[in-house]
C-alpha cells in the first residue's frame, strides 16, 4: 500500500513537472513581453546620451508608443552558432523597441542548411518574419508562394529603403510580373571588375611595362603570368582552384538577375542575350587557362581541391604570387593594401561595371507568408537599412567585446580576440558598417572611386530581372550540365578539343537556346517599356 502511495505521488510529481515545463514558457513569454514594455517606458524616460546621438545620426526618429511586436529573424552562420547572439539580440531589441516597436528573436541556421530549413519551417507554418535567402535563386520561393510581395509594405513602412532605391542603389529584386519580393543586402561596393593581382615587387621583377590599375588584354595577362612563373617556378595562379565558377572574370557579363544557365548579356552595351559559354570571350579564357595547366602553372588537382572561395593572394604556402579575382577593395575585413607587408598591384581584365543584381551571388531579405506581422517585419527591415547601430550589432557584434574603436569619429574598429569572424555582411545596408582597416582613409577613397566608376557604368540590363518560372525544368537540367563541365574546363584540367564541343552540345540538348529565347523576349518587352 505504502509502495502504491509513493508511486502515485512520484507519478503526479512527474506529470506536474511536465505541465510546469509547458506553463513556464508561457509565463516566460509574458514576462519578457512585460519586461519589454517596461523597458520602453523606462528607457524612453531615461534614454542615454549615446542612444540619443545614434538617433540623431540616423535621422529624427519618433519613439514608438504603440504595442511591441515580436518577430523572428533568420541569421545565417557558416558552421557553428554565434555564442554572443543573446547579448546581441538584447542590444538590438533595446533600439528596435524604441524606434520601430519591434523586438526580434533570432533563429540561427547554417548557410548550407538554410534552403531546406526554410522549406520545412514555412511548410510547417512556423512563424518566420524576416528570412535571408542567400546564394541561391529567389524565384523558387516566389513560384511556391513562400514569400510575400513587398511593394505595399515598403511604401507604408520602409521610407529609408525607398530612399535608397531613389538614390539608385540596386536594392530591389523585382519579379517583372509581380513586383518586389526581396531586398538586397547592400554591399560596401558595387559592381564587378576581374583582375589579376600580383605582388608589386614581383611585377617589377618581371620588368614588364604594367602597373597597378592598368587594363590588360588576356594576352598581356598571359605574358605577366608566364613571366612571373619563369622567375618563380614554384608559383601557381591562385583563384584557379576549387569548383567555384570563375570563367566570367575575363569579360563583362550580365546574367540579368538569374543564373548564367539562362544566358547573359556580354558587354556593357549589349542588349542581346547569348549563351556565354559559346562566346569568344569564354573560349579565349579557356584557352588561356588550358595553356597554363599544360605548362604546370595551374596545379593538376585544381578542379577537385576543396576550396570554394578564391584564396587570398598568399595561400599560406607562399605559392600564390598571382591571383585571379574580382578586385573590389574590401573594407569589411582585415584586408590591407599590402599583404605580408608587400604591396599588391591589380591588373584589370575588364572595366568596372554594374550588372543586374542577382540573389545567387548575394543575400536577399524576404518576408515569408508565415510572418506573424509583416508590417513589423518591414519596420525592422527599414531599421536594418538605416540604423548604424543595428547593422553593426548584427554584423560586427558588441562594442568592447567583439571589437573596439581605434577611431570612433571615423568609425574605424579593430576586431577583438573574442571575434569569431562570423559576419557574412548580409544584414541590411553594409555602407553603415564600421571599417576594420588601418588604412581606412586610403581604402575608403579607393572604394568610393570604385563605386563611382561601377555605378556610372551599368549594363543595358541593369534593373531587369528574368522570371524563369516557365523554363524551370530546362534551367535545372542546364545547371546540371554546368556543374559537370565548368569546374574542369575553367581550371584547364581537360582537353578543349574534345570536351568543349561536348559541353556546348549538351547545353543545347538541354534546351539552353529555348531558355535564351524566352529571356530575350522578356528582356525586349522590358526594354520597350524603359
Amino acid at each position, binding site marked *: 500500500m505504502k509502495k502504491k502511495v509513493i508511486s502515485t505521488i512520484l507519478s503526479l510529481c512527474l506529470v506536474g513537472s511536465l505541465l510546469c515545463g509547458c506553463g513556464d514558457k508561457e509565463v516566460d513569454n509574458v514576462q519578457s513581453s512585460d519586461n519589454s514594455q517596461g523597458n520602453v517606458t523606462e528607457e524612453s524616460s531615461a534614454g542615454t546620451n549615446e542612444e540619443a546621438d545614434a538617433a540623431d545620426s540616423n535621422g529624427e526618429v519618433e519613439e514608438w508608443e504603440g504595442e511591441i511586436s515580436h518577430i523572428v529573424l533568420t541569421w545565417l552562420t557558416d558552421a557553428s552558432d554565434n555564442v554572443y547572439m543573446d547579448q546581441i539580440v538584447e542590444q538590438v531589441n533595446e533600439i528596435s523597441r524604441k524606434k520601430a516597436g519591434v523586438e526580434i528573436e533570432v533563429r540561427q541556421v547554417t548557410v548550407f542548411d538554410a534552403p531546406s530549413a526554410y522549406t520545412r519551417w514555412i511548410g510547417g507554418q512556423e512563424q518566420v518574419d524576416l528570412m535571408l535567402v542567400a546564394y541561391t535563386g529567389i524565384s523558387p520561393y516566389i513560384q*511556391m508562394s513562400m514569400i510575400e510581395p513587398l511593394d505595399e509594405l515598403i511604401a507604408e513602412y520602409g521610407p529609408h529603403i525607398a530612399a535608397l532605391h531613389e538614390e539608385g542603389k540596386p536594392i530591389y529584386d523585382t519579379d517583372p510580373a509581380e513586383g518586389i519580393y526581396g531586398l538586397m543586402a547592400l554591399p560596401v561596393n558595387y559592381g564587378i571588375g576581374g583582375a589579376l593581382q600580383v605582388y608589386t615587387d614581383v611585377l617589377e621583377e618581371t620588368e614588364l611595362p604594367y602597373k597597378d590599375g592598368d587594363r590588360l588584354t588576356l594576352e598581356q595577362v598571359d605574358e605577366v603570368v608566364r613571366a612571373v612563373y619563369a622567375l618563380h617556378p614554384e608559383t601557381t595562379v591562385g583563384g584557379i582552384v576549387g569548383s567555384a565558377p570563375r570563367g566570367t572574370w575575363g569579360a563583362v557579363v550580365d546574367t540579368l538577375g538569374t543564373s548564367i544557365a539562362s544566358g547573359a548579356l556580354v558587354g556593357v552595351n549589349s542588349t542581346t542575350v547569348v549563351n556565354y559559354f559559346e562566346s569568344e570571350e569564354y573560349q579565349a579564357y579557356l584557352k588561356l587557362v588550358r595553356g597554363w595547366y599544360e605548362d604546370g602553372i595551374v596545379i593538376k*588537382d585544381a578542379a*577537385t581541391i576543396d576550396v570554394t572561395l578564391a584564396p587570398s593572394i598568399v595561400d599560406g604556402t607562399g605559392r600564390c604570387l598571382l591571383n585571379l579575382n574580382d578586385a573590389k577593395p574590401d573594407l569589411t575585413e582585415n584586408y590591407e593594401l599590402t599583404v605580408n607587408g608587400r604591396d599588391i598591384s591589380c591588373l584589370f581584365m575588364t572595366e568596372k561595371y554594374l550588372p543586374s543584381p542577382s540573389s545567387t551571388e548575394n543575400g536577399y531579405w524576404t518576408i515569408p507568408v508565415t510572418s506573424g506581422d509583416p508590417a513589423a517585419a518591414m519596420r525592422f527591415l527599414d531599421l536594418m537599412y538605416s540604423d548604424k547601430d543595428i547593422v553593426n550589432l548584427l554584423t560586427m557584434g558588441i562594442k568592447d567585446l567583439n571589437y573596439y574603436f581605434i577611431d570612433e569619429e571615423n568609425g574605424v574598429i579593430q576586431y577583438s580576440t573574442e571575434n569569431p569572424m562570423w559576419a557574412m555582411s548580409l544584414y541590411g545596408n553594409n555602407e553603415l558598417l564600421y571599417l576594420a582597416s588601418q588604412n581606412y582613409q586610403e581604402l575608403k577613397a579607393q572604394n568610393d572611386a570604385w563605386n563611382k566608376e561601377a555605378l556610372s557604368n551599368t549594363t543595358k540590363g541593369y534593373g531587369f530581372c528574368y522570371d524563369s518560372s516557365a523554363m524551370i*525544368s530546362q534551367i535545372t537540367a542546364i545547371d*546540371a550540365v554546368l556543374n559537370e563541365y565548368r*569546374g574542369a574546363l575553367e581550371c584547364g584540367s581537360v582537353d578543349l578539343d574534345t570536351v568543349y564541343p561536348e559541353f556546348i552540345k*549538351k547545353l543545347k540538348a*538541354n534546351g539552353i537556346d529555348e531558355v535564351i529565347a524566352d529571356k530575350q523576349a522578356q528582356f525586349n518587352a522590358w526594354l520597350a517599356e524603359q
Partner: protein
Amino acid sequence: MSILTKKKGKHIRWGRVIMAYIMLLPGLLYLLINNYLPMYGITIAFRQLDFKKGILKSPFCGLKNFKFLFVSGSLGPIMRNTILYNLVFMVLGTIFAIAVAILFNELQNKVAKKFYQTSILFPYLMSMVVVSSLVFNFLSADSGFINNSIIEPLTGNTISFYQEKKWWPFILTIVYLWKGIGFSMVLYLSTILGISKDYYEAARVDGATKWQQITNITLPLLKPMVITMSILNISKICTSDFGLFYQVPRNSGAIYSVTQTLDTYVYNALMNQNNISMSSAASVMQAFIGFVLVIGSNMIIRRISAEDAIF
C-alpha cells in the same frame, strides 16, 4: 467436436500471442508515423506547390515536375550507373562478404579473430568525408601516394585520376568493398555460427575436405540469408550511397559519366533551386522503380524456389 477443438485452439493461440502483438505495437506505430504517414507527400511530386494554399490544395500539374529528369539524354547514363554499380556491389559484396565470413569462421586463435574483425569493420565506421580524403591522398595528381611513389618513379608521368574516367569503376568498387565488407561479413558470419556443428562432424566422418564442407554445408545453408539480403538490396537499386558517389570522386565533373548516379544528379541539379516538387519527383521515381523490382524479383524467386521467397 471438431468445431469445439478449433475454437479451443484459436482461443489458446490468441491468448499466447496477445503479448507479442502488444510488444509489436510501438514498432508498428513507428512504422506508421515514420514510413506511412509521410507518404501523403508523394502528392507533392505531382503538384505545383503553393505554400499559401498548402500541400493538399496546391494545383495538380501532371508529370511536369518529372520533366527535368527527361529533358536531356543524361537520364540514360545516370540510370545505367546507378543500377550497374548496385548490381556489381551486390554480386561482389556478397561473394567477398561470404568468403571473408567463412575464413573468419575457420580462424581458431581468438586474439587474432578479434583483431582482424575489428580492423575489417573499422572502415565501415568511418565517415565518407574521411574516406574521400584518404582516397584523395592516394590518388592526387600533385601529391598523391600512388603518383608520387609508384607511377612517377616508374614512368616519369603522373595520372590525373580525377579527370580520367576509365579508373573510376574500379576505384569506386574497391572503395565500396573495402568500406562495406566488414559489416555485411558480420551478418553472414552470424548465420554461419548458427549452423549446427553436427553437420560438419558428420561430413568429416564421411571424409569430406574443407572445401567440400563449404560447398555442401555452409553455402546451401547460407542461401536464405543471401536471398533475403539480395531482395533488400534490389529494393535500393535506384538509390545510391551519396557519400561514395559524391565525396569520393570529389564531385569532379570530368568523370561524371561514370560516377554520377540519380542521387548526385538530383543534388547537383537542384542545389541552386530549392524546388521540393522536383526533388520529390525524383524520389517518387526511385521508390517506384525499387517497388517494381522488389515485387518482380520476389516473383521470380517464388517461381524458382517458393520456400525462399519473402512474401
